């Protein structure tokens, strides 16, 4: 979310999901919305039925793309040149919102100068999207009063993810499509509480509510409440932890010393992280590993201590959705077996360190969050109970929450244009590895499948790892529907059942990472965006061949 943070000052969905109902133009990028965010797709269907225009930017011809007025089927990894092309067209056709730029933004001239260098023919060649389509997209997006951009991991999971996001933000600012109801830039979050985990500062560089680690006032506030001095140095990111600090030399003055012990709560890096072999080596090499989870995951089997955790149905707590809505989950049943909620587990360890973390209830924890986090200042459980939740920022008990962000001004003051340039994918295709592999999610499963693969209905619907391939490629490789195909990258090998579909462009493959039988992240590269540290999951070079039975 670093992209939006640098341009707008806040890395969250600027609108509410319901506002999409009233959009006139929706630009969807890198999101298989109908499958991954059905409730967002529903709004898009609704507003398109009422006459709105839909532009989809995606290398795959997904269901939502079939439904679009304009589908820009770009070559993967060319978002930045495509958007630069669109923005150049907007300038050419004089559709720029001068007043908005003047009043609300900075660094426009650098942006304009860069755009004036753009050659549309070259953009068309790089992106594989025709000039005519680019111009049309520019007109449709810029001319409407209320245009919304929705993007998902197809934009961020690139080596240039931050720059990609900034490009979308640039586009929105260029045409004044932010800061209002029904128009904005909306990243769709993949997991149920990604937003909340960020808000609660499960991040190495901020304190809860994105408060600065360096601000003496903030530090003092936390010190008073927690009774200890807070550590000063910024922490390391997930990939630095799970890759033994070995592959992340760039960006660090000196190699960080490798992690020796880990506590992992409800995560399964052994499937979800790129370069699994590195992850496994790192985790095996740890002096001590503690995992708390509801199932014995691929990660948990490597642990020294495994705690049985309670599932969402077994606890009271809040989660924050994509549109910043903090909602209360009620407890349906008592914890299964002898499992405990994670806060109780952590409190148990803390007490053995001589630190008291016993809370009467999760409501009491939330009271502490309210006290220390202005963003969540009014999120008391009693307010959330019997309601549909509140959208942050919500400063105190009297605040009703915030439907859309950046009203009247950006969180950071002025929105900043960040010109971006095309970055070639980290791993180019070659004769030996001629296919471009895109990874993502499937409709019936969730993340590493620890939950969905134990749901008999979902398993029946989708029971094994599939790979999508264009029928022409299939024909060339002698593949028929249901054949097994072996996919190799420079790092690993996986076997899939092939699905031939014209959703894919020739030369591109798509698979999901839900199945431990085909650990897709043995194939993916460990390169990541230097700022956001988001791995380039969306592109790697592979070869494919039929598996003889």
């Amino acid at each position, binding site marked *: 979310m670093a992209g939006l943070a640098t341009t707008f000052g806040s890395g969250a969905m600027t609108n509410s999901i319901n506002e999409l109902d009233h959009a006139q133009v929706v630009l969807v990028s890198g999101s298989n919305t109908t499958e991954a965010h059905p409730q967002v797709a529903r709004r898009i269907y609704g507003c398109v039925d009422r006459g709105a225009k839909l532009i989809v930017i995606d290398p795959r011809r997904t269901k939502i793309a079939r439904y679009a007025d304009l589908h820009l089927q770009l070559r993967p990894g060319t978002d930045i040149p495509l958007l630069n092309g669109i923005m150049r067209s907007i300038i050419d056709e004089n559709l720029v919102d001068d007043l908005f730029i003047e009043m609300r933004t900075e660094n426009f001239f650098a942006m304009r100068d860069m755009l004036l260098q753009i050659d549309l023919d070259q953009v068309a060649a790089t992106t594989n999207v025709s000039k005519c389509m680019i111009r049309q997209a520019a007109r449709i997006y810029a001319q409407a009063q209320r245009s919304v951009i929705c993007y998902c991991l197809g934009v961020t999971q690139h080596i240039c993810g931050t720059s990609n996001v900034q490009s979308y933000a640039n586009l929105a600012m260029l045409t004044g499509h932010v800061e209002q109801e029904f128009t904005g830039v909306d990243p769709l979050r993949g*997991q149920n509480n990604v937003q909340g985990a960020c808000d609660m500062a*499960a991040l190495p560089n901020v304190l809860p509510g994105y408060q600065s680690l360096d601000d003496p006032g903030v530090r003092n506030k936390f010190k008073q409440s927690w009774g200890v001095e807070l*550590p000063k140095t910024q922490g390391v990111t997930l990939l630095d932890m799970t890759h033994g600090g070995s592959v992340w030399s760039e960006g660090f003055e000196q190699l960080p010393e490798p*992690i020796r012990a*880990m506590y992992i709560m409800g995560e399964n890096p052994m499937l979800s992280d790129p370069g699994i072999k590195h992850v496994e080596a790192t985790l095996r090499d740890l002096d001590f590993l503690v995992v708390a989870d509801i199932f014995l995951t691929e990660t948990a089997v490597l642990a020294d201590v495994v705690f049985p955790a309670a599932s969402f149905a077994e606890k009271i707590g809040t989660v924050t959705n994509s549109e910043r809505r903090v909602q209360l989950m009620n407890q349906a049943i008592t914890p299964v077996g*002898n499992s405990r909620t*994670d806060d109780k587990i*952590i409190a148990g360890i803390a007490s053995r360190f001589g630190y008291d973390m016993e809370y009467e209830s999760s409501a009491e924890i939330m009271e502490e969050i309210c006290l220390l986090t202005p963003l969540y200042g009014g999120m008391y459980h009693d307010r959330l109970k019997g309601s549909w939740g509140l959208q942050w920022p919500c400063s105190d008990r009297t605040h009703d929450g915030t439907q859309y962000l950046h009203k009247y001004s950006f969180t950071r003051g002025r929105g900043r244009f960040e010109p971006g340039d095309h970055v070639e994918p980290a791993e180019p295709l070659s004769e030996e590895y001629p296919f471009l592999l895109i990874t993502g999610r499937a409709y019936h499963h969730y993340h590493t499948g620890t939950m969905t693969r*134990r749901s008999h209905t979902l398993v029946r619907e989708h029971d094994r790892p599939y790979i999508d391939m264009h029928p022409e490629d299939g024909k060339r490789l002698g593949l028929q529907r249901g054949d097994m195909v072996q996919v190799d990258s420079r790092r690993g090998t996986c076997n899939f059942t092939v699905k031939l579909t014209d959703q894919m462009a020739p030369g591109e493959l798509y698979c999901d990472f839900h199945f431990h039988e085909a650990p897709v992240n043995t194939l993916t590269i460990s390169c990541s965006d230097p700022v956001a540290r988001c791995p380039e999951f969306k592109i790697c070079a592979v070869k494919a061949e039929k598996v003889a039975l």
Partner: protein
Amino acid sequence: MRDVLSVCTYCGCGCGLYLHVENNQVVGASPSRNHPVSRNNLCVKGWHVHEFIHSPDRLSDPLVRKDGRLVPVSWNEALDVAAAGLKGVKERYGPDRIGVLSSAKCSNEENYILQKFTRAVLGTNNIDHCARL
């Protein structure tokens, strides 16, 4: 049968759903008609969210590695071992050699508690989660 309102755990939409509970077992799930996001709708994952909860694979007891194998132990023992292990590394290498992964599938309260534990008890900012994955 009781109907308990919860939030779907399967994506960032945050759909409101009812868990149908009978004899401390979740036997079904259905959407909430008036929820502002889901408005009476769930996707296929939401409709079947109850199916994993009582899976026999659910971990029931804490496990500790003994002679290379994970064996069930009491909570007290597991917490002792976990605390001792973390303490040992902290003392030997310093707090910044401990890493903590939090979860985008856990509640805000649990995330808050884990980052507080990391910062206040372990004494490091080495905490992250899989937002980028």
